């Protein structure tokens, strides 16, 4: 992190007072009595939702602890608008204090391991939390072992991913602001599956929108390891061939061997090296580290297989997993909206399991992903998924779902509305 420090981040978070949270740190006392105990790791779209809904729906009958390493929630959805410059990091940052009224115990800390037999979770500071059910919503981590050039913190602080919203989001924005007019911003996209399928293409739009206003001689280069645009292809192509014509170049099948952070150069698997003024690499991804222990990542050693009725791991009993860490069902995206839906299905199932009630055999989940073209127009992809008892997975309902016919301002308004409602749904 050579280009950025924590103080810059806190400063730019502005009036939201990231440090003003009342999170309990250190040793937490064990709840008395025989209340079942649920410990949730990760306060993102999946984990915060699960914690809130278990506390809300069980009406205090279940003891809920939420372990989160951050001071406040920072949203990945809409973070590309911070990179484009139409929003500030404070606009996508929400306090965890809204969860206090549900009686959720919050612990600021880093979960480092768990004992599946004793049913305890251990934090980096040595705190041991007993659980009856453990819910992991750890998001993704990067497979840096595939890119030796990004082995050091210094290299990763220069060639950013900015794929977990927070300090890197602000740092990437700063790199773009500092770039000369006439420079090249390149984003390299890994092979699917990765977090947020349309996200890299939305980011390309946001950077192009910024260049159009501030640095019109500059260029956005999309180097996609996939054979084609993986989401909303027609809608993104319409933006790149329409309002951003001449600003954006898309290249498919652009796998990389390595990154030279010193010279901002990509070593391509095929063809010549590519150098950029601002280089943004999304390394291949896997389930967050806590969900790679005890064989939880039992799909290709990258993602986690679960029972879609309860979200319980197929590898370890009493451990449930949500969100981007999952080996997703067919046509199910790794999205924040989807993680929120996972959180509620899991919450209902965990309450049922802990109170001797019936687990629903017919869960449903809907997804809506908005992508912004500029600061006002957006477009969506939507799907509806239902549990298929024969195949034991979630399948899309035939005839449902779809895309926007074109990016439009109404959906820009709805996308902002979506953010406020989903943040409230998980955090207040």
């Amino acid at each position, binding site marked *: 992190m050579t280009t950025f420090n924590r103080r810059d981040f806190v400063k730019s978070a502005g009036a939201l007072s990231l440090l003003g949270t009342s999170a309990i740190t250190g040793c937490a006392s064990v709840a008395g009595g025989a209340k079942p105990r649920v410990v949730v790791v990760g306060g993102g779209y999946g984990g915060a939702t699960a914690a809130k*809904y278990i506390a*809300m*729906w069980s009406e205090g009958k279940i003891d809920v602890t939420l372990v989160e390493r951050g001071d406040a929630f920072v949203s990945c959805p809409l973070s590309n608008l911070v990179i484009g410059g139409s929003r500030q990091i404070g606009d996508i940052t929400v306090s965890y204090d809204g969860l206090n009224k549900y009686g959720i115990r919050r612990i600021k800390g880093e979960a480092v391991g768990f004992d599946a037999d004793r049913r305890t979770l251990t934090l980096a500071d040595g705190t041991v939390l007993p659980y009856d059910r453990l819910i992991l919503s750890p998001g993704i981590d990067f497979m840096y072992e595939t890119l030796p050039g990004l082995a050091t913190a210094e290299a990763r602080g220069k060639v950013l991913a900015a794929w977990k919203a927070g300090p890197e989001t602000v740092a990437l924005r700063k790199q773009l602001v500092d770039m000369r007019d006439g420079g090249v911003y390149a984003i390299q996209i890994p092979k699917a599956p990765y977090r947020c399928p349309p996200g890299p293409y939305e980011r390309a739009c946001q950077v192009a929108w910024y260049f159009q206003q501030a640095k019109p001689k500059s260029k956005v280069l999309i180097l996609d390891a996939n054979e084609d645009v993986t989401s909303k292809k027609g809608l993104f192509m319409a933006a790149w061939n329409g309002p951003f014509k001449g600003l954006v170049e898309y290249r498919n099948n652009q796998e990389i061997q390595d990154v030279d952070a010193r010279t901002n150069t990509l070593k391509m698997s095929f063809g010549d090296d590519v150098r950029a003024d601002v280089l943004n690499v999304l390394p291949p991804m896997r389930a967050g580290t806590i969900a790679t222990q005890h064989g939880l990542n039992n799909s290709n050693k990258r993602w986690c297989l679960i029972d879609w009725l309860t979200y319980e791991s197929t590898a370890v009993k009493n451990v449930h997993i949500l969100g981007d860490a999952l080996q997703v069902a067919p046509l199910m995206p790794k999205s924040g*909206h989807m993680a*929120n*839906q996972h959180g*509620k*299905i899991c919450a*209902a199932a965990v309450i*049922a399991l802990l109170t001797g*009630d*019936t*687990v*629903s*055999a*017919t*869960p*449903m*989940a*809907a997804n*809506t992903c908005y992508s912004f073209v500029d600061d006002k127009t957006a477009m*969506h992809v*939507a*799907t*509806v998924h*239902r549990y298929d008892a024969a195949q034991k997975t979630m399948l*899309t*309902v035939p*005839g*449902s*779902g*779809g895309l*926007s016919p074109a990016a*439009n301002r*109404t*959906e820009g*308004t*709805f996308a*902002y*509305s*979506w953010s*406020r*409602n*989903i943040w*409230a*749904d998980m955090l207040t």
Partner: protein
Amino acid sequence: MRRISHTTAVIASALLLAAAQAQTAQPGASKYLARNLAAQCANCHGTNGRSVAEVPSLAGQAATVLINKMQDYKDGKQPSTIMQQLAKGYTDEQIALMADYFSKQPK
């Protein structure tokens, strides 16, 4: 004519609702099915249907109004950006359960 069709729609909705509620009483069905289904809407329409932004609230609306609106989305009669696409993903019984749940939530 208009009044008759409205009355017919209300009766149809009421019958649908009764059928849907009978479904949750079946052995093996979660008694929280309506609550669980309705929770899917909260991402855009707010927890328990109480929106804090531009998208309308569902809480406290009459069940028949919500059922008829969803039917119109399904049939393509009601214009929308997303709801026509989402409404097609749910059975009439599921829609009736969700509508009943939202109608009982405080505004």
